[in-house]
């Protein structure tokens, strides 16, 4: 890590300390507008909710569970095409957005998504938003 701090700029003054918390500095906080934008889509809220249970998942599996979730609401069979559409949306819209906002890290080599450490308040917000939506439905 030391090479990140070129010695030539150090005039005997302490280097700024890197944030020593386990959370990266980009971790979304309740005060961020970005956070609300990231959580504005139902797909993204649900995706995060699922990742809270299972920290790491393949995009394939996430698409399957989101498809199943849809099926419980429509009462009809989700088709392979519909699931493929969900997968494309995840790859091209939702995951890039969530990665940008600091919620998840996407590993494109093995197609997995990992949930990054989140503030408890943000976790609560995700759970509440998904659960209240479920209640509103039932």
């Amino acid at each position, binding site marked *: 890590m030391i090479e990140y701090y070129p010695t030539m700029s150090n005039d005997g003054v302490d280097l700024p300390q890197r944030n020593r918390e386990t959370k990266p500095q980009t971790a979304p906080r309740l005060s961020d507008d970005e956070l609300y934008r990231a959580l504005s889509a139902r797909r993204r809220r649900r995706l995060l909710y699922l990742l809270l249970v299972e920290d790491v998942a393949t995009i394939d599996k996430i698409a399957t569970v989101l498809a*199943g979730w849809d099926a419980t*609401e429509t009462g009809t069979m989700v*088709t392979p095409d519909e699931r493929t559409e969900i997968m494309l949306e995840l790859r091209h819209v939702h995951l890039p957005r969530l990665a940008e906002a600091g919620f998840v890290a996407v590993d494109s080599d093995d197609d997995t998504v990992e949930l990054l450490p989140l503030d408890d308040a943000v976790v609560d917000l995700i759970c509440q938003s998904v659960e209240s939506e479920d209640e509103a439905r039932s």
Partner: protein
Amino acid sequence: MLDALLDEVGNRDKQFTVYRSSQPTEVEAQFAAHDVSVTQRTLPPDGPDPFLVIEEEGEFAGALGLAALDGLLEPPIVRPGERDDVSPGYRVLFDVLDETVFSAMDRGELLAVSREIEDRAYRVGTGTLHVSFQTLSTFQSQAEIYRHLARATDLDIHIYGIADWAPPDVPGISYHEYDDTHGMYWALAFDSGSDEAQACGLVAQEQDDQYDGFWTDDSDMVGNIRATLSDGSY
């Protein structure tokens, strides 16, 4: 040919996964009778309602909420049409549910299933009933039952077997002998004439005094069994 049917109805390339948060669901027990691999995955308690994911040859075929599935399985079972645009999930689901595959069934159990089919033929009273007893001497113990069946109904009954016994002449029953190389199948096919919903059949193969096979309510499959028996290509 009958062994081709036996291979065809196997459900080993199909995978069902039930996603749910808590208690095992009734549907899981229902699948247990169908020789399909069923696994469970846990969902968060406040997440979605339980649902079923259907895969065939490792590929996603469909997903359906268990509430909708329950409705679908409630008699009378209304199946989606045979159109090409029907979701493959429905096709796989009914493939699995239409044919019940069994293994290591004993003779008494198989007789009980056969009796169900004969009973239905009796109640419907019309159509054709094709039955392959492995040998006509096996038919001997059933001859009275079939005599009654032929007399009390308008059924057209065809009996197949190795000719090791001379069966009685009964109006409504015709006999078809086959040679001893194909004697190991026990099969019934009842096509109920105009009412396809009543069609049913079974195919079983004897192995070491036990029987492996399937039974079906699918009229196309019943037609396949009947055609295989009557054209002698079993």
